[in-house]
């Protein structure tokens, strides 16, 4: 448990009771409280290094705060629109850093460290799985009040598949990026301008930092929208669809349109830097590496924009569908108690010591009944004398399955398929006629022409869209130009078979322009 238990307060210097408040006004006091809270958010990270000495084993060689900050970073970058970050992926990505900090130690220990850091940031031991810090403020009458500040850095959320995923909280992003209080849009614009200038001047290290910050902002945008949509699904009226959300959507769409232009410009610029860098000098190589990393980051930005844009376009229809569904649910004839409006909502505002009374009353009357079990003495004796059943950890023994080898009834062998594919592995600038391919195949193996013909016919209508989506670089195609096929075995058209090169990046760009 991490908590700043006691803020050092110098009681000797406190003014006597009833004197003027020491802070020059409530605003200053509030500002101090906000900074204390910001400071408290970093405490769990410092605490990691303080607590590592308590671990059984030699863990002095690890910089835990660094690993912790990296973990927050990774979770932020991996959390998607719908779910959070996968725990195993985050742990896997943490490992290289942990391993680099103390290479001679075994991999199992590295894994233990990564896990310990992640669990510490979730604060697995506490029931809330969060942190608490205590800070003090002056009340309206000048009296000093200690308050609890509860926060989480990484929280666990349910995924659609029933698993547990990780999300970073606003507080954690605060620790990581800083200045979350600033307007999202203005921060984004500032980051973009900075990025362009930096790239033009060739300051790639700074540019990378700026690009990463821009990406955090995008994640934040998506997070705001996700919450609004989630709430809409439950109740359209819970969300302000008159102004707030349409404004948010407009803003976000403008922002995406803007970002596409910027990012494509940036991408062109960086690619230029990357390709023009001299790879043989150490400095040039470093330059090239950074530029390549930047390209990756900007590409990821573009991917996130596409995702956000899809959601934005779905938002309107989702609202209308939910409105229809919720508004046209037929009203009944009689009325009952409004459980939410009259019970739940008023109750949540109460102090917990009062709120527990209505919930207790609801529990006592709303849980149903249980029939008590009646015990006979004779049964009890038997029950008490029965030795406890040993719990089987492994469960019942599984019968060995009887495996029967199924006869291999495929018409063509693996070797034949390989030979056929090799035949069809044509250079992209030299397509061939099917007749020629068939003749080649026949020379190798009398069975082969049939397979080649099948593959060629299959390629007559190639799944171009799928290939693009899967990022394939080449695709087999077959075209009929009207020439009849003259062959001893086959008839039909003498197809032109070739390999087309696909420009996956260009296609992605086209899709964006269209959108």
């Amino acid at each position, binding site marked *: 448990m991490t908590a700043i238990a006691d803020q050092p307060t110098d009681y000797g210097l406190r003014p006597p009771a009833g004197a003027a408040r020491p802070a020059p006004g409530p605003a200053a006091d509030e500002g101090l409280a906000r900074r204390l809270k910001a400071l408290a958010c970093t405490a769990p990270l410092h605490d990691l290094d303080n607590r590592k000495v308590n671990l059984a084993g030699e863990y002095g060689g690890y910089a835990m705060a660094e690993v912790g900050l990296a973990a927050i970073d990774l979770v932020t970058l991996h959390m998607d629109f719908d779910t959070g970050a996968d725990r195993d992926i985050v742990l896997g990505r943490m490992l290289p850093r942990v391993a680099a900090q103390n290479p001679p130690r075994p991999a199992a220990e590295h894994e233990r460290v990564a896990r310990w850091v992640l669990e510490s940031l979730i604060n697995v031991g506490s029931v809330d799985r969060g942190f608490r810090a205590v800070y003090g403020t002056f009340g309206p009458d000048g009296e000093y009040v200690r308050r*609890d500040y509860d926060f989480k850095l990484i929280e*666990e959320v349910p995924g659609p598949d029933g698993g547990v995923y990780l999300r970073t909280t606003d507080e954690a992003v605060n620790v990581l990026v800083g200045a979350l209080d600033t307007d999202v849009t203005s921060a984004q614009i500032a980051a973009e301008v900075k990025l362009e200038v930096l790239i033009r001047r060739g300051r790639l290290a700074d540019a990378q930092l700026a690009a990463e910050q821009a990406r955090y902002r995008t994640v934040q945008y998506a997070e705001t929208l996700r919450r609004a949509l989630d709430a809409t699904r439950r109740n359209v*009226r819970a969300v302000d669809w008159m102004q707030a959300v349409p404004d948010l959507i407009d803003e976000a769409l403008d922002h995406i349109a803007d970002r596409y232009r910027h990012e494509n410009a940036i991408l062109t610029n960086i690619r230029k830097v990357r390709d023009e860098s001299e790879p043989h000098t150490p400095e040039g190589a470093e330059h090239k590496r950074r530029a390549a990393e930047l390209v990756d980051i900007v590409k990821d930005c573009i991917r996130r924009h596409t995702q956000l844009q899809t959601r934005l376009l779905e938002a309107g229809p989702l609202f209308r569908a939910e409105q229809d569904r919720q508004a046209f649910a037929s009203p*009944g004839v009689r*009325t*009952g108690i409004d459980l939410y409006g009259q019970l739940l909502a008023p*109750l949540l505002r109460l102090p917990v010591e009062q709120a527990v009374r209505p919930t*207790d009353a609801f529990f006592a*009357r709303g849980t149903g009944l249980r029939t008590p079990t009646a015990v006979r003495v004779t049964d009890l004796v038997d029950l008490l004398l029965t030795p406890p059943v040993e719990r089987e950890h492994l469960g019942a023994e599984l019968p060995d399955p009887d495996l029967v080898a199924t006869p291999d009834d495929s018409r063509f062998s693996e070797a034949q398929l390989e030979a056929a594919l090799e035949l069809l592995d044509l250079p992209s600038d030299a397509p061939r006629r099917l007749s020629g391919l068939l003749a080649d195949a026949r020379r190798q193996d009398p069975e082969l022409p049939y397979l080649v013909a099948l593959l060629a016919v299959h390629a007559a209508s190639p799944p171009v869209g799928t290939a693009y989506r899967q990022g394939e670089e080449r695709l087999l195609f077959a075209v009929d130009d009207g020439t009849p096929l003259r062959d001893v075995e086959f008839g039909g058209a003498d197809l032109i078979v070739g390999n087309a090169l696909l420009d996956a990046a260009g296609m992605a760009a086209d899709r964006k322009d269209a959108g």
Partner: protein
Amino acid sequence: MTTHHDAPWAPEAEPAPAALTPADVADAARLVSFGLQAKLLPARDAEYAELVRRHREDPPFARLADAVATGMGLVVLEVSARAGMAVAAAEDSVFAVRMGDYSRRAASESTDRFLHGLAHLAVAAMAFPRPEDLADDGYLGRITVNGVDAFVRQACRRLEEQADAAGDNTDPQSDAPGLEAAWRVWARRTATGATKDARRLSGSTIGITGKAVLFLVDSGFLQKTADDAGGTYRTTARYQLQVRDLAASGAMAELLDLGVVPVSDGSATLLPADHSEELVADAGLPFHSL
């Protein structure tokens, strides 16, 4: 049942009602015992259906059955073909569920006690989002475990936003944890959590909601329909009766006792009176309509 001492159309003033025999008492007790098996429905058991019909058509028998139930510490909510003999435990009855038996932790920790109670209330609020739903006998509520948690969290978030907008400091005083706003207790508890054995983390809000839902299934109040979203359930007639006739009014009485008077216009209309009004009648409809 046709051959009975008191035909329903018999005039009220008939002087000597036929004496009830021990066999009638046994039948009445049998009906109550069916009612205690909360998951059993008259549609599934011919004898049960027969007794329910007799309860409806034979007033002396009905009075006898009700008396047996009352004597055992039960409150009869309804006797009908759809719900069977819906009985609830009276306050001090042996059948009543106590918080300490329900969750050992809830007995000692007041915040956990509150969370468990709130989970039950939230399940009901999500199952019957509008007042009409609670009143309409034909309404089947549908809830998911994750949905209930998200629904409460959303309500908490709105309260937090309101407090922020009003400039209130909601952080509780360290020496008076009981004065912490109720919504904060739910909001700061983790929603879920990874455990060593891949089970639900029992102390998380989803774990607490899941426990409430499973308990309600055992009470014959919910039926599981799917595993989606932490488990999808639909309500039974009994649950509606229990919430409508007992639980909601009981909790409301406590709330009024605390000086909180929640006002409702009582109308079944879906139009909220005030745009800025906190989630009005149809708060938190189920996630997915099937």
